[in-house]
């Protein structure tokens, strides 16, 4: 074979040789060093779970009854973030489009940020922690403020602080729905016939006669989409201008931390602050079986 001598002729620099030797000295044997840790971890967590299971029983309500809808009805806790979104935008957007795009974006992270820096150590790039804090803080505070706005908490705060009534002229700012309900939209905007625009018939599905309700579209789709796309972009832009986020990795940390904070905040609100009628009040499911 002609290829064999070529492989031998590969020059190996002194630096590479030195590095290889150093690397060998920094290695440990998996047995016992890693296997021991894994064993201890398994034992500890077995004990932890047995103790937890002895102390706390899992919840079991009454037998399923399709005729009785509990108030509130909630999805499992890890989907309550989506259920929370459902209260603020079009159900197709919150229930399907946002999670699908979020998962695709999550999977695409390494294809955006393919730089080698910052590997193998916790937040090791220069501005990593700063971006984590910034992303997490903006995500958590921003989400909370947006939920408060949509629940008209700013009106409650305004009336508490000033003692005055919320001005009539600003009724369209009572919450996101205010734009739809408190503005005198001309009748034609509520029903713009677009006809068979989506051409679902081309896919062999029933044709859809689309009637466009512009205020509803604004409130349920246009504004939420722009907020979900625009606010993170704005954050990145501001962080870039302030030189907090400079590299791809910086922006990725900023956005990921923001995403995690939004996810956690929405989950907490959906779990602990959505009570009867899904109103924004403290709530816990564990009070339920007692009555």
């Amino acid at each position, binding site marked *: 074979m002609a290829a064999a001598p070529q492989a031998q002729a590969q020059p190996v620099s002194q630096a590479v040789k030195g590095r290889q030797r150093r690397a060998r000295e920094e290695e440990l044997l998996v*047995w016992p060093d890693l296997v021991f840790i894994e064993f201890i971890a398994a034992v500890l967590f077995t004990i932890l779970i047995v103790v937890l*299971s002895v102390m706390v*029983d899992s919840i*079991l*309500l009454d037998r399923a009854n399709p005729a009785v809808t509990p108030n509130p009805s909630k999805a499992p806790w890890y989907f309550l973030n989506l259920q929370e979104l459902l209260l603020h935008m079009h159900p197709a957007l919150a229930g399907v489009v946002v999670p699908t795009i979020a998962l695709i974006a999550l999977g695409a992270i390494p294809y955006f940020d393919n*730089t080698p820096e910052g590997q*193998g150590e916790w937040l090791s790039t220069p501005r990593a922690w700063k971006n984590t804090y910034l992303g997490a803080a903006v995500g958590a505070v921003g989400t909370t403020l947006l939920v408060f706005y949509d629940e008209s908490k700013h009106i409650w705060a305004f009336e508490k602080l000033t003692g005055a009534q919320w001005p009539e002229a600003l009724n369209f700012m009572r919450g996101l729905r205010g734009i739809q309900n408190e503005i005198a939209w001309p009748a034609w905007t509520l029903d713009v016939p677009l006809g068979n625009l989506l051409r679902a018939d081309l896919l062999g599905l029933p044709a859809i006669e689309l009637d466009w309700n512009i205020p509803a579209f604004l409130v349920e789709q246009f504004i939420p989409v722009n907020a979900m796309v625009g606010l993170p972009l704005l954050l990145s832009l501001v962080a870039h201008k302030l030189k907090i986020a400079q590299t791809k990795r910086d922006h990725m940390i900023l956005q990921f931390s923001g995403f995690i904070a939004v996810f956690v905040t929405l989950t907490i609100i959906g779990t602990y602050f959505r009570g009867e009628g899904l109103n924004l009040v403290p709530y816990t499911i564990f009070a339920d079986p007692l009555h």
Partner: protein
Amino acid sequence: MAATERPQGRSMGDRLYDAIFQNRLWRSIFRSGYPNTPRNQMLAVATNVFLHLHPTRIHRTHVKITHTFCLGGLSFFMFLGLTITGVLLMFYYVPSVDRAYADILALETDVRFGQLMRNMHRWMAHGMVLTVLMHMMRVFYTGAYKPPREFNWVVGVVLLVLTLLLSFTGYLLPWDQLALWAITVGTNMVGSAPILGEPNRFILVGGFQVGQAALTRFYALHVIGLPLMAAVFMMVHFWRIRRDGGLARPL
């Protein structure tokens, strides 16, 4: 010849060691001796199908607990624990609208350790969702998704989805009010997708509302369909860790 170099008789310990670790039975099972020398320690890992998930050596920073917090391993541990307790629960549970709830009640009151098994299964299910999410965060913040590990991150995202689906399908099985209405709310979200939502919801639930068809489907997915898929993706996930050069290291 100095006295110290004179051949000695074999000590009791040596003979005991040989009797246990050098006999034909031990050798037929493990092939290498007891892992008390570097050679045997490496052989113990390399010649064992389970330990072979690991390389024989790793970098010393990677055994630091604070580097990984064992989160990936804990997720796998939860999966194994859920499989064991899940199989035990299957002994007592029939996925029928008429029986399911009564079976859970019987499990809690009549079956020895039944309540414990159910509790362990539920807490580990919640725990697995948490450890998988935290594992994802660990991988992100240590930059371990970067080339050449991009694809393993994608496999991890698939495993996250499978974990959520496993938990979600299991949520229906106790057939109490919590289960029925959580799954009704969850599947209605699927149904809200434009055009394809309602057909998809119908396939998932097997009807217009959550009933026997949904319970059958969720049970089948929960006990065999999704665990098999998760196992396949886990195989790829673990294999790729090795293929991509182990845990990520600073350049």
